[in-house]
């Protein structure tokens, strides 16, 4: 994979890392009342939209109220999954000491068990971001997105399999969770039984979710049950398409890079920051868009600081972008349409073997290298600095 960022020397990398630590310190010092109020407000919105959404679906007699109800329920599920669930489970609000927002106990409205998700996401994905073979989120083990991944005939179908996944994303997320946990056990220690145990955790969550949306609430509607089933199905699907779109824009856009396990050997904290930067991409948009994406619109900031309360990413972004500019590093951002189009281009291009993929990519604009860094590194061992 080509990089369009300037290659930094060891000292430059460390300086870059130090500037990022500085930002973290500044921001963490401010975390407090505002952040607590934010998550409580979002939580309130999530509760109200659910009550209102389910109520409207339940008592609607024509398509408009039914439609509004479905949208509200979808919105509620999106808030629950994105701005609350994802961020709470990263421990962003553990400091509040509020059981509602505690990463250890939080469980979300999706068929993915939160503990399994925390393992493959918080640990595997956030530690080994875009490292092929280690970050199982890179292509989710079925989508080929770079020439470093081996081509197989099955990849020819990946446009369709991704379209399918988009509508059923929660199932993908859930099934992914237990498999990653299994794949991370050393081969020799794997037993058939363990896989079954992991799978049962997933099955249990499915059961809980399905009964809630497709049995409990429909039964409350009596003979009107088909309407409620349909409303829930649509709401879940809207949520699926939305989360898929946001999440795929996070790491699979055109200039998001991948790494090999060899590259990350002896990685320092600063190297890790650089990798997070190169591997992630942002989406620009409105405040409402940021909220509904759980601030994954700020994927880069999120990857640098996964446990900083998400609404802070907006204020970190300009600072981080300035630091990137200073060090000649590409800060990958763009509109949702642009980023989403790039993702699909990548899915399409790499569904073919490398030769064809290269040709398809050949028509793409020449890769533009970022300008030289505008920093002067001071050699601390230089003699002039040693006081006489």
């Amino acid at each position: 994979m080509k990089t369009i960022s300037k290659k930094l020397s060891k000292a430059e990398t460390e300086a870059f890392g130090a500037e990022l630590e500085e930002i973290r310190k500044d921001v963490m010092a401010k975390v407090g009342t505002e952040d607590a109020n934010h998550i409580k407000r979002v939580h309130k919105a999530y509760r109200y939209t659910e009550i209102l959404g389910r109520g409207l679906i339940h008592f609607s007699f024509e398509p408009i109220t039914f439609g509004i109800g479905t949208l509200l329920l979808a919105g509620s599920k999106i808030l629950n999954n994105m701005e609350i669930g994802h961020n709470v489970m990263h421990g962003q609000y553990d400091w509040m000491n509020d059981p509602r927002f505690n990463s250890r106990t939080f469980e979300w409205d999706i068929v993915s068990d939160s503990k399994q998700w925390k393992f493959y996401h918080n640990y595997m994905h956030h530690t080994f971001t875009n490292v092929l073979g280690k970050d199982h989120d890179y292509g989710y083990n079925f989508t080929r997105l770079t020439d470093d991944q081996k081509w197989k005939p099955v990849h020819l179908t990946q446009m369709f399999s991704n379209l399918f996944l988009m509508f059923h994303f929660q199932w993908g997320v859930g099934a992914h969770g237990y498999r990653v946990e299994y794949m991370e056990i050393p081969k020799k220690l794997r037993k058939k039984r363990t896989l079954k145990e992991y799978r049962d955790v997933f099955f249990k969550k499915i059961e809980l979710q399905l009964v809630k949306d497709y049995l409990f609430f429909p039964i409350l509607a009596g003979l009107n049950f088909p309407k409620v089933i349909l409303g829930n199905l649509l709401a879940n699907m809207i949520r699926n398409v939305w989360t898929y779109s946001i999440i795929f824009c996070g790491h699979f856009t055109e200039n998001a890079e991948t790494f090999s396990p060899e590259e990350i050997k002896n990685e320092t904290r600063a190297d890790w920051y650089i990798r997070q930067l190169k591997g992630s991409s942002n989406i620009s948009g409105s405040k409402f868009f940021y909220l509904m994406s759980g601030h994954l619109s700020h994927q880069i900031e999120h990857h640098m600081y996964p446990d900083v309360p998400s609404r802070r990413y907006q204020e970190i972004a300009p600072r981080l972008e300035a630091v990137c500019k200073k060090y000649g590093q590409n800060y990958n951002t763009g509109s949702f349409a642009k980023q989403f189009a790039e993702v699909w281009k990548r899915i399409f291009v790499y569904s073919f073997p490398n030769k064809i993929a290269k040709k398809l990519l050949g028509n793409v604009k020449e890769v533009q290298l970022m300008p030289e860094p505008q920093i002067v590194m001071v050699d601390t061992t230089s003699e002039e600095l040693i006081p006489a």
Partner: protein
Amino acid sequence: MKVLPFIYNSPKEYWNYFQPTNWLEFVLGEINPLYSVSTAKAKVIAIHSESADAKTIVLQTNRHWKGFQAGQHVPVTVEIAGRRVTRYYSLSSSPSAKNPTITVKRQKGGLVSNFLNDRLKVGDVIELGQASGEFTIDPSALPDKLLFIAGGSGITPIHSIIKTLAESNYKGQAKLLYFSRFKEDIIFFQSFAKLETGNSWLEVKHVLTDVPSPGYESGFLTTELMDKFVPDLKERLVYLCGPAPLQTSAKEFLKDNQVISELFLLPTQIQTNYQSSGPVEVVLLQSHKTVLLKGEKSILEELEDQGIYPPSGCRMGICHTCTCRKTSGSVTNIKDETMSDSGEGNIQLCLSRVDEKLELDF
């Protein structure tokens, strides 16, 4: 039931998954912040100054609060800068009062005590736990002669006890020896003056330790003072509450007495001669993190210093919110300097200091 095996096997867990109490709690809270399905909450209905740096907070509790016995304390939870923090305070009113009160003296650098003194307003709602504590008096077996020794904020449970005695027509004889730093520092001065005039069985002596003032005894606890104030010391049941130095010196005099005492002390206030041999690795199994802790403070504090916030409550070993399963490694209990074994067991993070490489189920 083959179709729904998990729900069939644990219907209760499924019901909890619906979060019925969370929902009810949410709806009730939206109607009135004092309403709740299970949490004891209280509205602040009045605040008055009790001394130079102590305030009495009058509370109107909801029906979940089960009351208290004179001398007990209650966990109080407030939100400070977005964070829920819990501290224990003695109830200072008598249990028969319609509105219970707590009296809070500012602690130097104390987060909650300063918050309650400066920022709490009438109308605010705070969260309470249930009252507990053994520093109480048995109304069915009241002794004839009592001695109360208090220092600083240690007076609050004693105030509650003496008020209760006054209400129950106590027939014996009680003396109170109360140490404050200076005149304006005396808590409940007015209240005790009133109690003393209205109840012939009560005798109060104020002692100022830092700034002498005419009309007041000054100094610390001495044989001379004791002999003068309570010549019949041996016959008395003693209630002792106050800072550690006072308690240590008081206990010298009270070797032959039956003493009921209470010591409010944060684990970190206890002096130790412990020398750490360097940072120790602590593996957090559930959050998949490994951190280095110095072993100088409690694990809870050291984790918080690193930005990791395990659930915690009282931070002094009472509430067990911070209890965490340890799968390996040993810790030292800060309070009594005992070492745990290195096997599996539950430890309280706020009371434990790391000794060797630890694995925590957190």
